[in-house]
């Protein structure tokens, strides 16, 4: 007799499918990890009328529809599905209870949960009930030579990364930051197994009552979502020089960010504050002008893909973490960049 395959589970967080593809990204990584420990990839879906739900606009799967279909098309071998009116809105206590029961019955090896706000509240509760460990907001996952899940957790605003393992307790659990992994393209001919999960006979009402809930899918987050961010600090020297950043940002189709001293000096609005007390940016390119690189600021720009920093001081922390470190006067570089861009963009 062959032993039951071990499971790598991915919690299906589909509420913001179009904005947040973290579940699909996790399915993709789970498939790679599954090869290393000979496991199957399972998605867990809780909700109501999840079959009527539309994922990718062009999706068509003859056998599986809705959320289940999406997850199978994106790599799940099996989907555990609990579909019931009680599960229509994400509810913390009910979802936690269902997950706890399901895990105790099926005993997966690993559970991965997207680090959405919901996931980061849900996962610790599930882990607590199961008496197992949980690593928060991972930015990397791997299987080591002992077959353990190595979970890379950022700390100190991304300035340190801790590699964490859960030695004995099972399952091994992690929440994972959206954008860490690449989803695999859908394949609507893939098939998989669907396991229906019944609700327990008596299900206590949630002690937390949802009074009102409004979905704001397109809430404008200009700075947070900008592909290019031009950030300025005290090193720019004056409000007038800082104002030049707006011209540069416009040429680049980007947004302007600022450090705290700059906001305090009223060179920029509070809305532009980037940092622990302000906004978190994740652009393709971040320009940083005259910024020292204090952790309260850099914590919110660690997700920038490419950093170009300008500072008089080559040893400033910001220069150390930049991909291109320009040792020069910030304002002069800004003006020269504007001229050069005008020449090149026609």
């Amino acid at each position, binding site marked *: 007799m062959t032993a039951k395959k071990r499971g790598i589970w991915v919690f299906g967080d589909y*509420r*913001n499918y179009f*904005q947040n593809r973290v579940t699909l990204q996790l399915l993709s990584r789970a498939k790679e990890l599954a090869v290393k420990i000979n496991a199957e990839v399972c998605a867990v879906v809780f909700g109501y009328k999840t079959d009527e739900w539309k994922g990718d606009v062009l999706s068509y799967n003859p056998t599986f529809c809705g959320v289940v279909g999406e997850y199978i098309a994106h790599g799940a071998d099996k989907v555990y599905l609990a579909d019931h009116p009680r599960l229509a809105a994400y509810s*913390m*206590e009910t979802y936690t209870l269902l997950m706890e029961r399901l895990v105790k019955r099926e005993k997966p090896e690993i559970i991965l949960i997207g680090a*959405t706000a919901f996931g*980061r*509240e849900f996962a*610790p*509760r599930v882990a*607590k009930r199961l008496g197992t460990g*949980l690593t*928060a907001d991972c930015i990397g996952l791997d299987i080591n030579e002992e077959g353990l899940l190595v979970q890379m957790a950022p*700390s*100190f605003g*991304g*300035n*340190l990364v*801790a*590699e*964490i*393992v*859960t*030695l004995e307790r099972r399952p091994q659990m992690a929440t994972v930051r959206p954008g860490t992994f690449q989803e695999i393209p859908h394949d609507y001919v893939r098939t998989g197994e669907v396991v229906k999960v019944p609700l327990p006979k008596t299900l206590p009402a949630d*002690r*937390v009552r*949802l*009074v*009102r*809930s*409004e979905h*704001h*899918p397109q809430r404008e987050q200009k700075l947070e979502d900008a592909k*290019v961010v031009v950030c300025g600090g005290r090193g720019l020297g004056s409000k007038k020089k800082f104002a030049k950043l707006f011209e540069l940002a416009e040429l*680049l*189709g*980007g947004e302007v960010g600022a450090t705290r001293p700059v906001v305090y000096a009223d060179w920029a609005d509070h809305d532009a504050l980037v940092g*622990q007390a302000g906004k978190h940016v994740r*652009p393709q*390119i971040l320009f940083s002008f005259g910024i020292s690189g*204090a*952790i*309260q600021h850099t914590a919110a720009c660690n997700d920038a893909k*490419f950093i*170009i920093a300008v500072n008089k001081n*080559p040893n400033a*922390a910001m*220069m*150390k973490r930049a*991909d*291109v*470190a*320009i*040792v*020069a006067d910030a304002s*002069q*570089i800004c003006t020269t960049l504007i001229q*050069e*861009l005008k020449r*090149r963009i026609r």
Partner: protein
Amino acid sequence: MLKLVVCIKQVPMVSELPWDPATGTIQRDLAEGMMNPACRSALDAALRIKEAAGGEITAITMGPPMAEEILREAIALGADRGVLLTDRKMAGADTSVTSHTLARAIEKACPGFDLILCGFSTIDSETAQVGPQLAEELDIPGVAYVNELEISGRTVRMQRFTDNFLETLEMDLPGLVTVTTGRYAPRHVPLGGLQAAFAGADIVSLDAAAVGLDPERIGAKGSATKIRNVYSPTAGKKNIVLTGAPKRIVEQLFERFDDKIGGAIGRDLKTERK
């Protein structure tokens, strides 16, 4: 009178470079301690409840003896008393064990509590897990990422904006919230606050035995997760350094990265060859 408990943690005050970039280890001796920012917001939320409706605030922290500093600060800001959980056996706790330790201590030191307020996350290990796990440990309702809260009678009404949902939620006391840094701003120590913090401040210190904790279930020993390695992702990062006249620097920037910059802004930035 409402019995409020605020969980606070001391974190290193890091501004420039508290870690050694070569080895990736934190130079703890260089970093002074401060109250974690979100814990300050939780304290502020508690102080507003106390100001509006009356109440007694207990600030509690688990940490090394020097964490007493933040309890004094909390008292200076208006908390009524402090509880310091300190014991070498508690060191190295993961979040599950931290919440276990806090839960048992709260039951011991603040029986009959009404509301527990935590920060949503710390700025050192940043897990945001302790609040939800503490609610589980105590088997009370809990809501994370709260921006605003209001108590009337035995009901707490909360607002939060998470995952693109603006939600209004309610729960009955006793309960737990974790508070974001958005609405509740840290305050300054009022006149007289400092005196309260030092002259006869009500601070008790408890070790594992005093709380009645099983030494097998606390600290590193009781923790399921193990930190294998800590490193700095930016240490030894190879970067390109450009110096010289601004004009020349900008030319070089485009020579090497016109594809990259052009790609990000969706434009072709190459100039025709002269």
